[in-house]
Protein backbone atom coordinates (compact mmCIF):
# COMPACT_ATOMS: atom_id res chain seq x y z
CA UNK A 1 0.00 0.00 0.00
CA UNK A 2 1.44 3.37 -0.93
CA UNK A 3 1.35 6.16 1.58
CA UNK A 4 -0.85 9.01 0.36
CA UNK A 5 0.71 12.41 -0.20
CA UNK A 6 -1.13 15.25 1.44
CA UNK A 7 -0.99 18.96 0.82
CA UNK A 8 -1.23 21.58 3.48
CA UNK A 9 -0.29 25.16 4.24
CA UNK A 10 2.41 26.12 6.72
CA UNK A 11 2.90 29.82 7.43
CA UNK A 12 1.05 30.67 4.23
CA UNK A 13 3.19 28.40 2.07
CA UNK A 14 1.66 25.45 0.26
CA UNK A 15 3.66 22.32 1.11
CA UNK A 16 3.20 18.58 0.78
CA UNK A 17 4.25 15.52 2.73
CA UNK A 18 3.57 11.84 3.29
CA UNK A 19 0.55 11.03 5.43
CA UNK A 20 2.90 9.42 7.95
CA UNK A 21 4.85 12.62 8.50
CA UNK A 22 4.41 15.12 11.27
CA UNK A 23 4.00 18.86 10.96
CA UNK A 24 7.53 19.28 12.31
CA UNK A 25 9.02 16.99 9.65
CA UNK A 26 7.21 18.65 6.77
CA UNK A 27 8.07 22.11 8.09
CA UNK A 28 11.72 21.08 8.37
CA UNK A 29 11.78 19.70 4.84
CA UNK A 30 10.56 23.05 3.61
CA UNK A 31 13.00 25.13 5.57
CA UNK A 32 10.47 26.39 8.07
CA UNK A 33 12.14 26.44 11.47
CA UNK A 34 10.08 25.53 14.54
CA UNK A 35 11.91 25.67 17.87
CA UNK A 36 12.37 22.29 19.57
CA UNK A 37 14.18 20.97 22.60
CA UNK A 38 13.05 17.47 23.60
CA UNK A 39 12.71 16.42 19.96
CA UNK A 40 15.71 14.84 18.29
CA UNK A 41 15.65 13.29 14.85
CA UNK A 42 16.16 9.56 15.31
CA UNK A 43 14.45 9.26 18.69
CA UNK A 44 10.77 8.78 19.47
CA UNK A 45 8.88 12.03 19.90
CA UNK A 46 7.33 12.72 23.30
CA UNK A 47 5.82 16.17 22.95
CA UNK A 48 7.20 17.14 26.35
CA UNK A 49 8.94 20.50 26.02
CA UNK A 50 5.97 22.18 24.30
CA UNK A 51 8.23 24.55 22.33
CA UNK A 52 7.14 23.23 18.94
CA UNK A 53 3.50 24.08 19.61
CA UNK A 54 1.80 25.49 16.53
CA UNK A 55 -1.62 26.87 15.73
CA UNK A 56 -3.88 24.90 13.42
CA UNK A 57 -6.80 26.64 11.76
CA UNK A 58 -10.14 25.41 13.05
CA UNK A 59 -8.72 24.16 16.34
CA UNK A 60 -8.81 26.20 19.51
CA UNK A 61 -5.96 24.17 20.99
CA UNK A 62 -2.26 24.43 20.28
CA UNK A 63 -0.58 21.36 18.85
CA UNK A 64 2.96 20.09 19.39
CA UNK A 65 4.32 19.83 15.85
CA UNK A 66 6.59 16.89 16.68
CA UNK A 67 3.69 14.51 17.36
CA UNK A 68 0.98 16.01 15.15
CA UNK A 69 0.50 14.11 11.88
CA UNK A 70 -0.23 16.27 8.85
CA UNK A 71 -3.70 16.31 7.38
CA UNK A 72 -5.01 17.24 3.98
CA UNK A 73 -5.86 20.91 3.79
CA UNK A 74 -4.38 21.68 7.22
CA UNK A 75 -3.48 25.33 7.73
CA UNK A 76 -0.60 25.66 10.19
CA UNK A 77 0.86 28.77 11.75
CA UNK A 78 4.25 28.30 13.37
CA UNK A 79 4.96 31.88 14.35
CA UNK A 80 2.59 34.23 16.13
CA UNK A 81 2.83 36.65 18.99
CA UNK A 82 1.04 34.16 21.24
CA UNK A 83 3.29 31.23 20.32
CA UNK A 84 6.32 33.40 20.73
CA UNK A 85 5.31 34.52 24.19
CA UNK A 86 4.60 30.93 25.27
CA UNK A 87 7.95 29.76 23.90
CA UNK A 88 9.74 32.56 25.67
CA UNK A 89 7.97 31.69 28.91
CA UNK A 90 8.82 27.99 28.59
CA UNK A 91 12.52 28.67 28.00
CA UNK A 92 12.54 31.09 30.92
CA UNK A 93 10.86 28.51 33.14
CA UNK A 94 13.67 26.11 32.28
CA UNK A 95 16.35 28.66 33.13
CA UNK A 96 14.67 29.40 36.45
CA UNK A 97 14.09 25.74 37.27
CA UNK A 98 17.72 24.73 37.86
CA UNK A 99 21.14 26.31 38.07
CA UNK A 100 22.12 27.14 34.52
CA UNK A 101 25.19 29.30 34.85
CA UNK A 102 26.17 29.65 31.20
CA UNK A 103 29.38 31.51 31.91
CA UNK A 104 31.00 28.53 33.61
CA UNK A 105 29.38 25.72 31.65
CA UNK A 106 31.23 23.12 29.59
CA UNK A 107 28.63 23.62 26.86
CA UNK A 108 28.77 27.42 26.79
CA UNK A 109 28.39 28.42 23.17
CA UNK A 110 27.27 24.95 22.11
CA UNK A 111 24.06 24.68 24.08
CA UNK A 112 20.58 24.31 22.66
CA UNK A 113 18.96 26.02 25.64
CA UNK A 114 21.29 28.97 25.26
CA UNK A 115 20.59 29.08 21.52
CA UNK A 116 16.84 29.00 22.12
CA UNK A 117 17.10 31.94 24.50
CA UNK A 118 19.03 33.89 21.91
CA UNK A 119 16.69 32.99 19.04
CA UNK A 120 13.67 33.96 21.10
CA UNK A 121 15.26 37.23 22.18
CA UNK A 122 15.33 36.35 25.87
CA UNK A 123 17.70 38.82 27.55
CA UNK A 124 16.72 38.09 31.14
CA UNK A 125 14.64 35.63 33.15
CA UNK A 126 11.41 37.07 34.51
CA UNK A 127 10.84 34.24 36.97
CA UNK A 128 12.91 34.07 40.14
CA UNK A 129 15.40 31.23 40.14
CA UNK A 130 14.50 28.20 42.24
CA UNK A 131 18.16 27.40 43.00
CA UNK A 132 17.69 23.76 43.96
CA UNK A 133 20.68 22.07 45.58
CA UNK A 134 21.48 19.37 43.04
CA UNK A 135 24.31 16.91 42.81
CA UNK A 136 26.94 16.37 40.15
CA UNK A 137 27.51 12.70 39.43
CA UNK A 138 31.15 12.31 38.38
CA UNK A 139 31.38 8.65 39.35
CA UNK A 140 31.72 7.45 35.77
CA UNK A 141 35.28 7.14 34.51
CA UNK A 142 34.67 9.09 31.31
CA UNK A 143 31.50 11.13 31.73
CA UNK A 144 29.82 13.57 34.10
CA UNK A 145 26.14 14.12 34.84
CA UNK A 146 25.39 17.58 36.23
CA UNK A 147 21.76 17.73 37.36
CA UNK A 148 22.05 21.50 37.70
CA UNK A 149 22.03 21.85 33.93
CA UNK A 150 19.47 19.17 33.09
CA UNK A 151 16.24 20.25 31.36
CA UNK A 152 14.61 16.80 31.66
CA UNK A 153 14.14 16.48 27.90
CA UNK A 154 14.73 12.71 28.34
CA UNK A 155 16.78 12.47 25.16
CA UNK A 156 19.37 10.48 27.16
CA UNK A 157 16.66 8.13 28.44
CA UNK A 158 15.34 7.55 24.94
CA UNK A 159 18.66 7.18 23.15
CA UNK A 160 19.82 4.67 25.75
CA UNK A 161 16.62 2.62 25.60
CA UNK A 162 15.80 2.97 21.92
CA UNK A 163 19.16 3.09 20.17
CA UNK A 164 21.71 1.59 22.51
CA UNK A 165 19.19 -0.83 24.01
CA UNK A 166 20.62 -0.54 27.52
CA UNK A 167 17.92 1.55 29.23
CA UNK A 168 20.38 2.71 31.85
CA UNK A 169 18.65 6.07 32.25
CA UNK A 170 15.21 6.79 33.53
CA UNK A 171 13.44 9.45 35.57
CA UNK A 172 12.74 9.32 39.29
CA UNK A 173 10.29 11.34 41.38
CA UNK A 174 7.53 13.54 40.06
CA UNK A 175 7.00 17.12 39.01
CA UNK A 176 9.57 19.70 39.96
CA UNK A 177 11.55 17.03 41.87
CA UNK A 178 12.00 14.83 38.80
CA UNK A 179 15.56 13.67 38.19
CA UNK A 180 17.43 11.53 35.72
CA UNK A 181 18.70 8.35 37.35
CA UNK A 182 21.01 5.56 36.26
CA UNK A 183 19.61 2.08 36.81
CA UNK A 184 17.66 2.07 40.06
CA UNK A 185 19.12 5.36 41.25
CA UNK A 186 22.73 4.34 41.52
CA UNK A 187 25.85 6.44 40.87
CA UNK A 188 26.49 6.33 37.13
CA UNK A 189 29.92 4.77 37.61
CA UNK A 190 28.42 1.77 39.39
CA UNK A 191 25.70 1.18 36.81
CA UNK A 192 25.65 -2.43 35.69
CA UNK A 193 23.81 -1.67 32.45
CA UNK A 194 25.72 1.33 31.10
CA UNK A 195 27.81 0.31 28.13
CA UNK A 196 29.84 3.52 28.19
CA UNK A 197 28.82 4.27 24.59
CA UNK A 198 28.44 7.98 25.27
CA UNK A 199 25.34 8.43 23.12
CA UNK A 200 23.52 10.09 25.98
CA UNK A 201 26.29 12.65 26.29
CA UNK A 202 26.09 13.56 22.64
CA UNK A 203 22.31 13.88 22.44
CA UNK A 204 22.12 16.01 25.62
CA UNK A 205 21.12 19.52 24.53
CA UNK A 206 22.88 21.24 27.44
CA UNK A 207 25.92 20.74 29.61
CA UNK A 208 24.10 18.25 31.85
CA UNK A 209 25.96 15.34 30.28
CA UNK A 210 29.55 15.91 29.27
CA UNK A 211 32.86 14.20 28.81
CA UNK A 212 35.29 14.39 31.66
CA UNK A 213 38.19 16.77 31.28
CA UNK A 214 36.30 19.33 29.24
CA UNK A 215 36.52 22.85 30.54
CA UNK A 216 34.23 25.82 30.00
CA UNK A 217 32.82 25.94 26.46
CA UNK A 218 34.87 22.93 25.37
CA UNK A 219 32.10 20.35 25.16
CA UNK A 220 30.97 20.11 21.56
CA UNK A 221 28.47 17.39 20.84
CA UNK A 222 28.22 15.15 17.79
CA UNK A 223 24.55 14.79 17.04
CA UNK A 224 24.21 14.15 13.32
CA UNK A 225 25.26 10.49 13.60
CA UNK A 226 21.89 9.54 15.02
CA UNK A 227 19.59 9.65 11.96
CA UNK A 228 22.26 7.73 10.06
CA UNK A 229 22.32 5.06 12.76
CA UNK A 230 18.56 4.79 12.73
CA UNK A 231 18.30 4.75 8.94
CA UNK A 232 20.66 1.81 8.77
CA UNK A 233 18.67 -0.32 11.12
CA UNK A 234 16.67 -3.08 9.51
CA UNK A 235 14.08 -3.38 12.21
CA UNK A 236 11.41 -0.81 12.68
CA UNK A 237 11.15 0.47 16.19
CA UNK A 238 7.89 0.87 18.00
Amino acid at each position, binding site marked *: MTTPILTLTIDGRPVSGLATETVLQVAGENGIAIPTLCFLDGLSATGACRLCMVEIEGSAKLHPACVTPIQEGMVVTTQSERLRSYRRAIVQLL*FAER*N*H*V*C*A*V*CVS*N*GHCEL*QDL*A*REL*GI*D*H*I*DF*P*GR*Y*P*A*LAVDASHSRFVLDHNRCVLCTRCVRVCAEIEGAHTWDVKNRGIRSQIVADLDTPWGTSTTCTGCGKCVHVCPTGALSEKGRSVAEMQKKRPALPYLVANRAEERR
Partner: protein
Amino acid sequence: MNRLRLATLWLDGCSGCHMSLLDTDERLLDLAAQVDIVYSPLVDAKDFPEQVDVVCIEGAVATDADEARLRLARRRSRLLIAMGDCAVTGNVPAMRNIMGAEAMLRAVYLESRPLKPQIPADGLPHLNEQALPLHHFVPIDLFIPGCPPAADTLFAALGGLLAGIADLRLDTRFGA
Protein backbone atom coordinates in the same frame (compact mmCIF):
# COMPACT_ATOMS: atom_id res chain seq x y z
CA MET B 1 24.69 70.30 23.07
CA ASN B 2 23.79 68.68 26.37
CA ARG B 3 26.29 65.99 27.18
CA LEU B 4 24.82 62.76 28.49
CA ARG B 5 25.52 62.09 32.15
CA LEU B 6 26.75 58.48 32.36
CA ALA B 7 27.37 56.53 35.55
CA THR B 8 28.55 52.98 36.12
CA LEU B 9 28.12 50.95 39.26
CA TRP B 10 29.95 47.84 40.41
CA LEU B 11 27.99 45.50 42.67
CA ASP B 12 28.67 41.77 43.21
CA GLY B 13 30.68 40.94 40.12
CA CYS B 14 34.26 40.41 39.04
CA SER B 15 34.60 43.84 37.32
CA GLY B 16 34.99 42.00 34.03
CA CYS B 17 32.13 44.02 32.56
CA HIS B 18 33.95 47.22 33.42
CA MET B 19 37.06 45.78 31.79
CA SER B 20 35.01 45.04 28.72
CA LEU B 21 33.76 48.61 28.74
CA LEU B 22 37.36 49.82 28.76
CA ASP B 23 38.09 47.34 26.02
CA THR B 24 36.27 49.57 23.54
CA ASP B 25 39.76 51.04 23.04
CA GLU B 26 40.00 54.20 20.99
CA ARG B 27 36.21 54.34 20.64
CA LEU B 28 36.25 55.48 24.27
CA LEU B 29 37.41 58.80 22.88
CA ASP B 30 34.29 59.07 20.68
CA LEU B 31 32.21 58.19 23.68
CA ALA B 32 33.99 60.69 25.88
CA ALA B 33 33.12 63.37 23.36
CA GLN B 34 29.44 62.71 23.94
CA VAL B 35 29.17 61.82 27.62
CA ASP B 36 30.34 62.88 31.02
CA ILE B 37 31.19 59.96 33.26
CA VAL B 38 29.78 61.36 36.49
CA TYR B 39 30.18 58.32 38.70
CA SER B 40 32.11 55.07 38.24
CA PRO B 41 34.85 52.90 39.74
CA LEU B 42 36.87 54.46 36.93
CA VAL B 43 36.48 58.05 38.18
CA ASP B 44 36.87 59.88 41.47
CA ALA B 45 33.31 60.83 42.43
CA LYS B 46 32.47 59.47 45.88
CA ASP B 47 28.69 59.88 45.84
CA PHE B 48 26.17 58.87 43.29
CA PRO B 49 25.04 62.18 41.77
CA GLU B 50 21.57 63.44 40.95
CA GLN B 51 20.09 63.53 37.45
CA VAL B 52 22.05 60.80 35.78
CA ASP B 53 20.95 59.97 32.25
CA VAL B 54 22.26 56.43 31.99
CA VAL B 55 23.65 54.12 34.63
CA CYS B 56 25.32 50.81 33.68
CA ILE B 57 25.30 48.41 36.59
CA GLU B 58 27.56 45.41 36.83
CA GLY B 59 27.06 42.60 39.32
CA ALA B 60 24.31 40.93 41.29
CA VAL B 61 22.70 42.28 44.43
CA ALA B 62 24.36 40.32 47.22
CA THR B 63 24.23 42.59 50.29
CA ASP B 64 21.98 45.17 51.84
CA ALA B 65 24.51 47.79 50.76
CA ASP B 66 24.25 46.61 47.15
CA GLU B 67 20.51 46.91 47.36
CA ALA B 68 20.67 50.43 48.78
CA ARG B 69 23.13 51.56 46.10
CA LEU B 70 20.97 50.03 43.38
CA ARG B 71 17.83 51.75 44.65
CA LEU B 72 19.64 55.09 44.90
CA ALA B 73 20.97 54.70 41.37
CA ARG B 74 17.50 53.85 40.14
CA ARG B 75 15.99 56.92 41.79
CA ARG B 76 18.61 59.24 40.39
CA SER B 77 18.86 57.83 36.86
CA ARG B 78 16.67 58.07 33.81
CA LEU B 79 17.82 54.83 32.21
CA LEU B 80 19.22 51.82 34.00
CA ILE B 81 21.23 49.18 32.18
CA ALA B 82 21.80 45.74 33.69
CA MET B 83 25.30 45.15 32.37
CA GLY B 84 26.48 41.56 32.12
CA ASP B 85 25.22 38.21 33.37
CA CYS B 86 25.64 38.88 37.11
CA ALA B 87 23.34 41.88 36.86
CA VAL B 88 21.01 40.08 34.46
CA THR B 89 20.76 36.56 35.92
CA GLY B 90 22.80 36.48 39.12
CA ASN B 91 25.34 34.30 37.31
CA VAL B 92 28.37 33.16 39.34
CA PRO B 93 27.55 35.13 42.53
CA ALA B 94 24.17 33.37 42.58
CA MET B 95 25.80 29.93 42.61
CA ARG B 96 25.85 30.22 46.38
CA ASN B 97 22.06 30.51 46.44
CA ILE B 98 21.65 26.76 46.65
CA MET B 99 22.97 26.82 50.21
CA GLY B 100 22.11 30.26 51.61
CA ALA B 101 24.41 32.91 53.06
CA GLU B 102 25.09 31.42 56.48
CA ALA B 103 26.05 27.96 55.24
CA MET B 104 28.19 29.46 52.50
CA LEU B 105 30.11 31.67 54.95
CA ARG B 106 30.69 28.70 57.25
CA ALA B 107 31.84 26.53 54.37
CA VAL B 108 34.33 29.11 53.14
CA TYR B 109 35.65 30.65 56.37
CA LEU B 110 35.35 27.84 58.90
CA GLU B 111 35.02 24.44 57.29
CA SER B 112 37.71 24.81 54.64
CA ARG B 113 40.40 24.75 57.37
CA PRO B 114 41.75 28.28 56.96
CA LEU B 115 44.73 29.45 59.05
CA LYS B 116 42.52 31.63 61.17
CA PRO B 117 38.93 30.40 61.12
CA GLN B 118 36.54 33.35 61.48
CA ILE B 119 33.60 34.77 59.64
CA PRO B 120 34.50 38.36 58.68
CA ALA B 121 31.96 40.83 59.92
CA ASP B 122 33.54 44.12 61.00
CA GLY B 123 32.61 46.98 58.72
CA LEU B 124 31.16 44.67 56.12
CA PRO B 125 27.65 44.94 54.75
CA HIS B 126 25.19 42.22 55.66
CA LEU B 127 25.22 39.37 53.16
CA ASN B 128 21.75 38.67 51.78
CA GLU B 129 20.46 35.11 51.80
CA GLN B 130 20.68 35.03 48.03
CA ALA B 131 22.52 36.97 45.35
CA LEU B 132 19.87 38.11 42.89
CA PRO B 133 19.65 39.90 39.55
CA LEU B 134 18.79 43.60 39.50
CA HIS B 135 15.29 43.28 38.05
CA HIS B 136 14.12 41.54 41.21
CA PHE B 137 14.55 44.93 42.93
CA VAL B 138 14.01 47.73 40.43
CA PRO B 139 12.70 48.16 36.89
CA ILE B 140 15.37 47.77 34.22
CA ASP B 141 15.46 49.65 30.93
CA LEU B 142 17.97 47.48 29.07
CA PHE B 143 19.44 44.05 29.72
CA ILE B 144 22.84 43.25 28.24
CA PRO B 145 23.64 39.60 28.92
CA GLY B 146 27.16 38.27 28.50
CA CYS B 147 30.04 37.28 30.75
CA PRO B 148 31.26 39.78 30.02
CA PRO B 149 29.32 41.34 27.17
CA ALA B 150 31.74 42.01 24.33
CA ALA B 151 33.16 45.51 24.10
CA ASP B 152 31.38 45.86 20.76
CA THR B 153 28.09 44.97 22.39
CA LEU B 154 28.50 47.53 25.15
CA PHE B 155 29.57 50.15 22.68
CA ALA B 156 26.61 49.33 20.43
CA ALA B 157 24.28 49.59 23.40
CA LEU B 158 25.56 52.96 24.54
CA GLY B 159 25.70 54.20 20.97
CA GLY B 160 22.16 53.06 20.41
CA LEU B 161 20.96 54.84 23.54
CA LEU B 162 22.77 58.02 22.49
CA ALA B 163 21.16 57.77 19.06
CA GLY B 164 17.78 57.25 20.72
CA ILE B 165 17.02 53.87 19.12
CA ALA B 166 13.87 52.64 20.83
CA ASP B 167 14.01 48.94 19.95
CA LEU B 168 17.63 48.13 20.56
CA ARG B 169 18.67 44.62 19.39
CA LEU B 170 21.99 43.46 20.72
CA ASP B 171 23.97 40.52 19.43
CA THR B 172 24.72 38.80 22.72
CA ARG B 173 23.56 35.94 24.92
CA PHE B 174 23.91 34.50 28.43
CA GLY B 175 27.50 33.42 28.94
CA ALA B 176 28.74 35.22 25.82
